[in-house]
C-alpha cells in the first residue's frame, strides 16, 4: 500500500454521500493510515495479535492494493463470506445451546456442590487473605473455588476492590471483563467444542448472577443485575436493561432509607489507578447513580441538612462535585453536602479513640 492508495481513498470518500458505505470506507481509510505510519516490525506484531485480526488486516491490505473495480468485487466476496461464516457460527451456537440447555439445571447443582465444598477450604476472612485464596484458585483453574471465594468477597461488599486489583472497573462491565478474561481466560476446553465453551460460559454467568444478587442486596447498584435469562440460558444484560432493573429495584426503597443506606457503590464505581493494589481507585458517578440522585435530589438534600445521610456516600460524592452540577443538582444540594461533610469529620476525641481501638 502506498500514499496513492490513501489519496485515492480520500477522494472516493469525499464523493460518497453520508451513510453506511461512506462509514465503511472511512474505516478502511483509517486502517490504511494506521498501517502507513507503522514500521514493518510493528505491522508484523500487529498481525500476530490474533488470527482473526491478522486475517482482517491482510484482507484490508490486499483490498487497498487493488483497482477500484477489483476492490468492489473483492469486497462483495468478503461480505458474502462474512455472512456465510456468521450464519454458520449462529447455527453452531444454536445447536450447542440446544444441546446444553437440558443439562443446565444439573450443571448448576454440580457448581453449587463444588462451591460449598471449596468454601470449607478457604482460609482467613480479611480481604487480603481472601485475595490470596482467589489467586490460588485462579492459578489452579478451579472454578468452584473461585466462585466460593468471590461470594465471600461479595458478602463483605468487596468485589469492587478485587475488580480494581485485577485492573477492572468496579461495575457490571468490569465484572463481565474480569470473569471473561481472568476466570474463563484461556482455560483449555475439552475438544474445544462450542458445547464446552457455552457450558463454561453459562456456569460463569450463573456465578455472576449470584455475585450480582449479593451486590443488589447491599445496594451496590453498579454491580447489580449483571445478567438475565432467556428461557434457561443466561446472558449479559444490555446496559439499558441493567439500568431499568436497578431503577425498578431502587423505586421500591423509600428515598429517606436510600439516603441513609446507600453507600458509594450505589452511586458510582472506581477506576483502578494501577493493578495489584487494594488501594481505592478514582471514583466516577455511574448513570444509575446520576438517576438516583436526580430523582431524589429534594429528599436527599433534606436528609443532608438533617445530618441523616450515609457518611461514606457524602464523602465520595463531594469528590465529584462538578459532575453533580452536570446532573442538574442545585447549588443548595452541594452546599448541604459540604456542610454535612465538615460536621461528620469532627468527631469527639473519645469517639475517634474508641473507633481506632475497634478497628485495630
Amino acid at each position, binding site marked *: 500500500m502506498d500514499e496513492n492508495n490513501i489519496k485515492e481513498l480520500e477522494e472516493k470518500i469525499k464523493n460518497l454521500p453520508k451513510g453506511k458505505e461512506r462509514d465503511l470506507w472511512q474505516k478502511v481509510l483509517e486502517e490504511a493510515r494506521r498501517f502507513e505510519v507503522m514500521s514493518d516490525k510493528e505491522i508484523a506484531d500487529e498481525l500476530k495479535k490474533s488470527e482473526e485480526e491478522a486475517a482482517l488486516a491482510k484482507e484490508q491490505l490486499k483490498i487497498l492494493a487493488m483497482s477500484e473495480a477489483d476492490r468492489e468485487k473483492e469486497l462483495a466476496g468478503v461480505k458474502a463470506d462474512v455472512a456465510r461464516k456468521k450464519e454458520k457460527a449462529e447455527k453452531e451456537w444454536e445447536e450447542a445451546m440446544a444441546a446444553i440447555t437440558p443439562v443446565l439445571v444439573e450443571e448448576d447443582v454440580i*457448581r*453449587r*456442590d463444588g*462451591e*460449598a465444598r471449596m*468454601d470449607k477450604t478457604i482460609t482467613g476472612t480479611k480481604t487480603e487473605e481472601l485475595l490470596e485464596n482467589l489467586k490460588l484458585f485462579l492459578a489452579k483453574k478451579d472454578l468452584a473455588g473461585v*466462585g*466460593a471465594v468471590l*461470594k465471600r468477597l*461479595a*458478602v*463483605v*461488599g468487596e468485589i469492587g476492590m478485587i475488580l480494581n486489583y485485577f485492573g477492572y472497573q468496579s461495575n457490571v462491565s468490569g465484572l463481565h471483563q474480569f470473569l471473561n478474561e481472568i476466570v474463563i481466560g484461556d482455560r483449555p476446553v475439552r475438544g474445544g467444542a462450542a458445547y464446552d465453551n457455552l457450558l463454561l460460559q453459562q456456569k460463569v454467568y450463573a456465578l455472576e*448472577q*449470584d455475585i450480582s*444478587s*449479593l451486590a*443488589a*442486596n*447491599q445496594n451496590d447498584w453498579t454491580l447489580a*443485575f449483571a*445478567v*438475565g*435469562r*432467556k428461557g434457561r440460558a443466561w446472558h449479559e*444484560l444490555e446496559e*439499558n*436493561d441493567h*439500568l*431499568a*432493573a436497578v*431503577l*425498578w*429495584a431502587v*423505586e421500591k426503597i*423509600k428515598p429517606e*432509607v436510600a439516603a*441513609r*443506606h446507600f*453507600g458509594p457503590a450505589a452511586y458510582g464505581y472506581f477506576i483502578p489507578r494501577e493493578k495489584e493494589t487494594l488501594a481505592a481507585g478514582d471514583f466516577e458517578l455511574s*448513570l444509575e447513580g*446520576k*438517576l438516583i440522585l*436526580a*430523582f431524589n435530589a429534594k429528599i436527599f438534600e433534606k436528609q443532608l441538612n438533617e445530618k*441523616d445521610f*450515609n*457518611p*461514606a456516600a457524602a464523602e465520595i460524592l463531594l469528590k465529584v462535585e462538578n459532575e453533580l452540577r452536570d*446532573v*442538574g443538582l442545585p447549588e443548595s444540594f452541594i452546599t448541604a453536602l459540604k456542610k454535612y461533610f465538615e460536621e461528620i469529620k469532627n468527631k*469527639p476525641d*473519645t*469517639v475517634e*479513640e*474508641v*473507633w481506632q*481501638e*475497634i*478497628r485495630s
Partner: protein
Amino acid sequence: MIDLNNQKTIEAIKWHTGRVVAFDLVREARLLANFLEKKLSSNAVEQPEDELGYQELLAKAKFIALPMLDAGEIVNLFQENFTLIFEMPDYDLWKKIKTKLIATAKFEERDILKKKIGAALSVNDQSLTEGRVVLGSTEVRGTVKNWLMDARQTLGSGKMEIVQLSQYLINSANTKKLSEEDRRKVDYLLKFYEKTKESSIDLGGMEEITIFEVDGALDAYEEGITERIGREIKDKVGALQGAETTAEIKNEIQSRYRGDEAEEKKVVAEMKKIQKAAAGDFKKMADALFHAIPGPGRAVDKIYFVAILKVLAEEGKLEKLMEDERFSGMVISYLKAKEKTSELAGFKANPRASQYLSALLQYLLKDVMGMNDDDSGRLGMQIFNTLAKKGAGDKYQGVVYFDLEKKEFAWS
C-alpha cells in the same frame, strides 16, 4: 487501651452502634461486634447493667452484619434477640437473611438454615407484645414463642394464606385486644416465620431476583412473584441518556402536572363549596359523588366531579369509598371488564390495596367521565400525591407515571 467501664467509652460505643444501625454499615458492624464479643468474653465489664447494655449493642451490631455471621451465630441471634429489630429503624431483616442465603451455595443448606431460624423463633422467650396471650385456658406472656404457638393452634402448622393471616390478626381472641403497634409486631413475626418455611428449591422460595427477557419485555422474578419492569423506567433512562437535562424533564412534568390553570381554579372554588356543604360527612360526599355520575337527566360536570374526588382525598376519606357497596361494585365490574377476575379474591380480602383505588379512579375518570389516559392520569397523580401527604406515604407510588417518550401521564 480503652476502659469499657468508663462512661465516656459507653457513650462512644453507643454512638458507633447507633451509626452502624442508622446507615447500615455492614463492615463496621462486624468490626464492632468482634470487638465487643472479645471484650465481653474476657469479663472486661464490671457492672451487670453495663454488661447487659453492651450485650444489646453487640446484638444490634450482629443484626447489621448478619450476612457475615456463621449459621450458629445467626440462629442464636434469633433465639435470644429477635425483638431487638423493632428498635432498629428501617432494618430489613428478611433482606439480610436473603443475602446470607444467596451466599450459601447449596439450596439444601439454605433450607436447613431457614428451618433452624424458624425453630429458634419457636423457643424465643422474649416479650413481643405488651398484651398477653391465652393458650388453652392459661394466660401467658406475649412472647415470640407464645404468639407462634397461638397462631399454630388457630391456623394450623401448614402454609398460612394471607387471607387467613389477616383474619387471625383482626379477629382472633388474642389479637382482638392488641394495640396497633403490638398487632404490627405479631404480623411481622408471622409473615417472617412463614418465609422460613419456604424451600429455596421451590419457585416461591427463590431468594435471588432473576431478570427474564420475555418477548422483548423485562420481567423480574423473586420469591414466586413476577413483576414487569415498566417501560416508564426505561423512558427515564432514555431521557437522561438523551439530550434532555434533568431540569428540563422536571419542568416538563411539573408543567403537565399542573394542567390548565383556569380549570384548576374552578375546581378549587368548587372544592370549597363542597367542603362547606359536606362538613366532613363521608356519606354526604359519597352520595354527592354517586349522584354526580352522568346518566339520564344528569349532565357531565367534570369540574364538580373532580372537585368531589379531590375533597375526599383532602379529607383522607377516598379509600373509604371501598366500603360503600355502590363503589366497591364499580371496582368489581371494572376488574371483570378488564378480565382481571383473578384479582377479585384479593379485592375482597384487602379492598384498600393500592391497585383497587387505582381501578376505581380509572373507572370513574376514564369510563364514566370519558377522560383519556393523560388527563385521568394527571388527576390520578394529583389525588395520589394528596393521599401521600395525608398519611398514605408511598403506598400509591408508581400507580400513575409520566411517560417521557409520549410526554403524557399513564396508569401502570
